[in-house]
Structures are given as C-alpha cells and as structure tokens.
C-alpha cells in the first residue's frame, strides 16, 4: 500500500499541535482533571467544547462539499458510530478509570511529553486493559459482532 509522501508529515504536524494544545490546556495534568471532576475548576469544559467546535466546523463544512481528502482520496465525512450497549458499558468503565486516575489516553501521551514520568503507570495500565478486552473479544463468536473503531 503506497501512501502520499505528505501523509506522515501531516500526521506529525497535526500531532504536534494536538499535543502542544493538551499541554497548554493543562489537561495533561491528572490533578487538573480531578479538580474538574470534583467541581473545583470548570475550565476543562472549554477544552472539550473549544476542541469539538473547531473540529465540528471543519467536519460540517467539508463533508457538505461532498469532496474527498487530497492525500488519501477518502471522502470527507462526519465521525458516526453505531449505538449499542457497549457504548454505555465501555463508557461507564472508562468513566470509573478516568475518575480514579484523572487521565485519558491522549492526555496520557501528552503527560509523558511534559515530563510526567509516573504517567507510565497509567500507560502500562491502558495497554493491559486494552489487551484484556482484546483477548475477551477476539473469541470467534464475539468477532462477528466486533465493530472497528477509529479512536
């Protein structure tokens, strides 16, 4: 499979901006997330809404043109996933983990970048968790129902 030569450079630029933003927003600090979840500081609302509004404007504008992306030929579309009970079950398990640790995947990567080496405990845990659910859900019967996710 050949990719456009600018594909990886673009991923790098996007990732750099994304990571810088997570650092700047302080969401890479578990303490800030925990303060948000315990109503000490509501600032994190601006991170999620600010980010989703910017992304949403681009998704809506581009997907309404019916065009496709220059580097992949992939049609511009919104991110739509099917709904089933896994969204509720997984969301609840994620919520418990997020409430205990104050860290989510993207913020964990950024947290490593700001020098927070103990976040390696969280990253190790995430790989263990992702592996466990993968083993449970890779059984032949479960596979037919497995839904690919792009997150």
């Amino acid at each position, binding site marked *: 499979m050949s990719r456009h030569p600018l*594909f990886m450079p673009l991923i790098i630029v996007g990732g750099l901006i994304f990571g810088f933003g997570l650092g700047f927003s302080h969401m890479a600090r578990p303490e800030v997330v925990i303060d948000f979840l315990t109503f000490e500081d509501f600032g994190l609302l601006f991170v999620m809404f600010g980010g989703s509004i910017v992304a949403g404007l681009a998704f809506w504008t581009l997907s309404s043109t019916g065009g496709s992306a220059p580097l*992949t030929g992939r049609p511009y579309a919104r991110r739509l996933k099917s709904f089933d009970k896994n969204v509720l079950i997984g969301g609840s398990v994620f919520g418990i983990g997020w409430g205990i640790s104050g860290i989510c995947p993207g913020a964990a990567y950024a947290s490593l970048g700001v020098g927070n080496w103990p976040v390696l405990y969280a990253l190790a845990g995430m790989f263990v968790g992702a592996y466990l659910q993968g083993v449970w859900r890779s059984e032949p019967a479960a596979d037919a129902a497995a839904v690919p996710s792009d997150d």
Partner: protein
Amino acid sequence: MITDLLGSGAIETLFPNGISRYAIGGLLVGLGTVVIYLGTGITAGASTFLESTLSYVSDRSRFAQYRASRDWRVVFTLSIIAGAGVYAIIYQGDPWALAGSAWITEVAPWRLFLGGILVGIGTRIGKGCTSGHGICGVGSVSRTSLVGVATFLVVAIITANIVAAFGVTP
C-alpha cells in the same frame, strides 16, 4: 457583564485559574484534529493507538484489524508527546531551558495504574475516548458520541467524588 449576572466572584470561583489556558488549549487540540482531517479525511482519536500497537505483538483478530493504521498511529502518538514536550520546554521552568522543565504528578501510582487499566478496557469497548467521542464525535453531533460522553463524564464525576470522600488526595 457576565460577572454582573452571576455576582462578583462567581467567575473566580468557577474558574480559579482563568479560562484562557483552557480555551486556547482546546482550540489547538481541535486545530490539530482539523489539520489531519483536511489532508486525510481521518477523524483521529487517541485510544485506537493502544490496540493498533498491540497488533505488533499479538495476532488476536481484535488487534489485527488495525494493522493498516498502526504505523501512523505510532507516529501520531509520538508527535503528541513531542508537542507537549515543546510546551513544557517553553512554559514549564525557564523558557527554552531543558533542565527544570518537567512537571511531575502527585497522584498515587496505584490510582494511575488501576485507572489506566479501566481506561484501556472502557475506551476500547465504548468505541472512543475523550478525543474520539469528545472532540471528533461531539464535533460531528453524533448521538452515539453524545451519549458516550455523557456516560463517561457522569460516571467519572461520581467516581472522583467518591475517591475524594474517602480522603484519597491526591
């Protein structure tokens, strides 16, 4: 104006650290997502990296489905780390000095590890995390993502308050 409506001090109470760092940071997170989307049409989330990277060491079908994207997801994650590193070098400690730039959490390792396991399980079963559902999904006004975000947010608030009530700090 808003201060008048809420009474003086309300803004300071709700946002003791101001809002600019959060708003600017959030706009940049959105911008990073948009840059990738503009060129590739991909609505990139952060948590798929966990499973796609496991496909390097495991042949389980659940991980193998991500083989095609696993290389750029590694690059994406390394770039997120590097971008946050640039922030740290500029804004943490003396500007552009590497020494003293690191910020280190005081949250207990057991909280990070145990929470991390549940985050790893939950984000993958629940079809997304704070970036996939929270940024891309909410930006797409996907009902699935709106329900997903409401679920993990409410459960996280309850959990964090229970942990705090038990006197676990930080």
